[in-house]
């Protein structure tokens, strides 16, 4: 009876602890779970060994009937243990499968989103390039940029100023010639005055001649005719002089008009040109600044692209955890399989339900020791092969 109480207490503890194991598995702390399973296996083995010793001792001291009763109780306990293990293994198996599925789905989703992130970033870069190109052009067919347009405007303005200045210069030269011409007119007027004075003297002389001819009587009659003709000529000459004077006067009026129009041609107010030049200059400065800014933005963006690629790379490399998790799950699975094998072994003993329990337990103990060694080796190998995620490169999968 003493053994039964001990067994009962032990199973109670085991049940509680296994329930805790169940909780841990759900939290996916695989190493702890595995450690616990190993401890559990050792514990069971120790217990069974002790039990076997007890049985041995009892075989010497107790009767056969008492031994048979003890065996029956032991078989029942082992059957319970086996059933419990089978149930727990099934739960753990299912949880492992579920974890695997969850990880697979999540990794698939994350991987797809990283890939589309890469594509979107490339597209974004291209679109921004188009925007910058459009911003620079002014929409004509020769593909002029705002900068070249402003430069052209500046050149045009310079040419315009050159034309104004050279027009002014030519006009002033014209003006100088005109002034000379006006001076020439003045000399002509002086000459005309002399001619007029000659005509008037001639007129006076002709008058005197006519008077003298009249005094001479009949003898001077012919001479009087000549004198009258000379006088008439002098009058015509004076009239002709006056005509010339009038013509030259109207020429002077025309020259005054010419002066006025040359003056307009020569004197262009430069204020508006100055303003235009200022505008073009400030526009040049603005375009230069805008170009510099655009250049900087383009540079910054160009630097962003490798950063995005790096970041995506880090993300993708981090997805290695899928591989590592699969490996961990696989070894967990092999551990569970080992426990399952032990459980089967236990099952075989309980199914036999009779025979020499000591022999069964001895072979069971051997099996357990082998399993412990095997899982220990496996675990060691795995710890060596599972290095950090950060180590090594991994490509897109």
């Amino acid at each position, binding site marked *: 009876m003493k053994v039964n109480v001990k067994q009962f207490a032990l199973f109670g503890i085991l049940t509680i602890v296994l329930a805790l194991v169940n909780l841990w598995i759900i939290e996916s702390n695989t190493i702890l779970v595995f450690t616990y399973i190993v401890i559990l296996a050792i514990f069971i083995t120790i217990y069974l060994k002790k039990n076997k010793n007890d049985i041995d001792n009892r075989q010497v001291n107790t009767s056969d009937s008492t031994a048979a009763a003890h065996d029956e109780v032991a078989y029942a306990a082992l059957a319970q243990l086996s059933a419990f293990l089978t149930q727990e293994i099934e739960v753990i198996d299912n949880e492992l499968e579920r974890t695997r599925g969850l990880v697979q789905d999540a990794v698939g989703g994350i991987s797809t989103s990283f890939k589309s992130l890469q594509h979107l970033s490339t597209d974004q870069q291209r679109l921004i390039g188009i925007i910058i190109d459009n911003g620079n052009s002014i929409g004509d067919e020769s593909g002029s940029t705002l900068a070249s347009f402003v430069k052209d405007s500046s050149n045009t303005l*310079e040419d315009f*100023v*050159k034309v*104004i*200045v*050279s*027009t*002014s*210069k*030519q*006009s*002033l*030269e014209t*003006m*100088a010639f005109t*002034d000379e011409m006006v001076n020439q007119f003045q000399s002509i007027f002086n000459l005309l005055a002399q001619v007029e004075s000659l005509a008037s003297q001639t007129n006076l002389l002709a008058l005197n001649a006519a008077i003298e001819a009249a005094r001479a009587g009949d003898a001077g009659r012919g001479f009087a005719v000549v004198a009258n003709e000379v006088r008439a000529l002098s009058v015509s000459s004076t009239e002709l002089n006056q005509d010339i004077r009038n013509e030259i006067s109207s020429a002077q009026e025309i020259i005054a008009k010419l002066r006025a129009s040359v*003056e307009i041609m*020569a*004197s*262009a*107010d*430069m204020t508006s*040109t*100055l303003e235009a*030049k200022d505008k073009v200059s400030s526009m040049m400065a603005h375009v230069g600044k805008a170009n510099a800014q655009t250049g900087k933005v383009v540079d910054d963006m160009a630097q962003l692209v490798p950063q995005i690629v790096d970041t995506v790379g880090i993300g993708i490399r981090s997805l290695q955890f899928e591989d590592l998790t699969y490996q961990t799950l696989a070894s967990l699975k092999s551990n569970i399989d080992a426990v399952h094998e032990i459980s089967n072994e236990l099952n075989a003993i309980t199914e036999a339900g009779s025979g020499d329990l000591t022999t069964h337990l001895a072979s069971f103990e051997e099996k357990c020791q082998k399993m412990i060694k095997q899982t220990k080796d496996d675990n060691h190998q795995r710890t060596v092969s599972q290095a950090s995620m950060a180590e090594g490169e991994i490509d897109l999968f």
Partner: protein
Amino acid sequence: MTIQAITLADNKGLKISISERFDFSLHQQFRDSYLNYNDKGAEFTLDLSNTTYMDSSALGMILLLKDHADKLSGKLVISKPNDAINKILEIAQFHRLMPIEV
């Protein structure tokens, strides 16, 4: 007098000063101020320190003075234009044609 022409002491040059407006109305006066100065290698100084306004005919007059100086193998220097006047001279790119002493 808006134009003052002073023959320099050593007789090596002519200084022409323009006060206030330098425009078309001065063209005759301006021309007369230098036309009779025909020394070889003469240096003409155009003093614009008191000039407040200048139109394109002033630029034409300066170019004609420059032609006159070139004909004598002399030179023309523009002296002390104010900011506004200097801007006009710059737009006309006169600083490429003659020294401008600010």
